[in-house]
């Protein structure tokens, strides 16, 4: 940001005028860069994906482009396996979201109940640490620990239980992905829920306790309703981020074996760089983009951000 003070030495009147301009239109200067970047990262990619999805050959020259109608969409959903990848994505997103919310809430509630404040902060810090692991490192850990030959987890299962360990990466790849993501991102839900639980006023809890309500009823009727905005926001943001999942799956299975773990994001990536079909990739991308944004906006409109907005 260039402030008028820089021109101060050259000419007094101009600098005074600039300073006035700066202060009078401050909100515009402050908002301007953000709005420009936002347009560049929302409207531009959306429009460009749509343009690419509707033409035959990728070209920057709009006038030379040949209109392809819905051909690219047809290719995407017939030979491109788009539908399958949408099913895989929804499976991963829904299961991981459920697991992470329930586990995150349970852990938050248990930690909140710990009496010793030192033990409490110990657990609080320990339980956020898995978030430090980048998805691609998560894939690394998965490959190291779950490998059928050298992995410690199959080894322990085989040695200590009567069951034979499954081949995590080839027999149950989707479940493996979901469990790895759960380990990685339950901390996200945990820390937000924990903060939400701590914000429940003691008076409210006391009143419920005096009523003689058992613990679970206190949660269902008093604590969770009070925390509704927190639960909503945590779930919404985790949902949004789950649709962005890429690194853990790409590092672990690259969408395989076959197409068993082919998320939409991986399908698009492969259409682009392996099949070299940018227009088909764009067709899947625009469908994905519209569906995710529409879903999130419907959720926001239905549930609303009560208690979130002032």
């Amino acid at each position, binding site marked *: 940001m260039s402030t008028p003070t820089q021109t101060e030495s050259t000419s007094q009147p101009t600098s005074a005028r600039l300073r006035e301009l700066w202060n009078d239109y401050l909100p515009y200067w402050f908002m301007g*860069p953000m709005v420009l970047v936002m347009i560049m*990262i929302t409207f531009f990619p959306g429009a460009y994906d749509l343009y690419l999805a509707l033409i035959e050959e990728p070209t920057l020259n709009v006038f030379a482009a040949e209109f392809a109608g819905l051909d690219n969409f047809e290719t995407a959903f017939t030979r491109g396996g788009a539908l399958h990848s949408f099913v895989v994505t929804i499976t991963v997103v829904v299961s991981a979201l459920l697991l992470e919310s329930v586990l995150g809430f349970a852990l938050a509630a*248990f930690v909140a109940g710990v009496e010793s404040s030192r033990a409490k902060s110990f*657990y609080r810090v320990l339980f956020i*640490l898995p978030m430090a692991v980048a998805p*691609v490192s998560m*894939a690394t850990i998965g490959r190291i620990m779950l490998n059928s030959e*050298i992995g410690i987890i199959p080894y322990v299962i085989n040695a200590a239980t009567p069951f034979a360990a499954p081949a995590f990466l080839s027999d149950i790849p989707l479940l493996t992905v979901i469990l790895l993501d759960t380990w990685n991102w339950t901390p996200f839900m945990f820390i937000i829920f*924990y903060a939400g639980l701590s914000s429940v006023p003691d008076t409210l809890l006391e009143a419920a306790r005096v009523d003689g309500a058992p613990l679970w009823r206190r949660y269902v009727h008093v604590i969770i309703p009070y925390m509704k905005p927190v639960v909503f926001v945590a779930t919404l943001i985790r949902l949004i981020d789950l649709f962005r999942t890429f690194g853990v799956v790409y590092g672990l299975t690259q969408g395989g074996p076959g197409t068993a773990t082919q998320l939409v994001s991986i399908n698009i990536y492969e259409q682009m760089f392996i099949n070299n079909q940018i227009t088909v990739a764009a067709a899947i991308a625009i469908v994905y*983009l519209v569906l995710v944004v529409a879903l999130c906006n419907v959720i926001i409109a239905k549930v609303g951000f009560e208690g979130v907005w002032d």
Partner: protein
Amino acid sequence: MATDTVPGSSQRLDKDTRETLVKVVRHAVLLTWSLVVIFPFYWLASMSLKPPGEANALPPDWIFLPTVYNYIQLVQQSEFVTAFANSLLMVSASVVLVLLIGVPAAYVLSRYDIPMERDVLVWILSSRMLPPIAVVLPFFIIFRELNLFDTRIGMVLMYVSINLSLVVWVMKAFFDGIPETLEEAARVDGATRFQGFRKVVLPAAKPGIFSVAIISFIFAWIELLFGLVLTSFKAVPVTLFVYSFIGSRSIEWGMLAAASMAMILPVVVFLIAVNKYLAAGLSFGVVIKE
């Protein structure tokens, strides 16, 4: 056996027994999850400290002489050093840039009456909803035209795109929590609106800025896709280095573990440093206090 001979014990537990039971279950769950959390870290760390050949021995050598051999090998790989330095540089630059763009905008959204403020905020949040693969596809084509492909500047811009919505939302929430009377007092003393922002509001919002900076750093640091699509050699981030390491035919497990540790440890330190404000930052400012 002996326990179910007590008549009526299963129907109604007295209060003390019930509380003890809750306590036992709580500790069992918390200890189990602690183990689940710690074990992968322990395993990765011990693997990175084992001499080659011993790294993936089964049954594992629980007791071994730790060696920094893998780390030395790693640091001698110029690709790793370049990628690590690249990530550090690109991610830090993106954090500075995203704060410069996002914090002033958040201030305006907090203090001024903006028409359709709700819609503007949801629009800002929607930049997070766009799947990165759908965003990166157009930029892949444009970057090649603009000679931004495989450049650090291009990557910085993409990292900004991940975190801008987070910065605006969290900082708006922090600014909302700072009473306006503070700036009004400064303005009565003759400060301009900008001076009020810079000298009064910004210092008061320091914890917010600190936490949002660290969380933005983490989100950019762990990003793989942008590096995969938009870099090939010069601007490779550390995530892509680790990825290509996994892809190589004969994996040197010890070095892979060391590379992963090198990526994880700085983030662990950051998370611990910012843990008080983590919930505020991650919830986009909805939860401000614990």
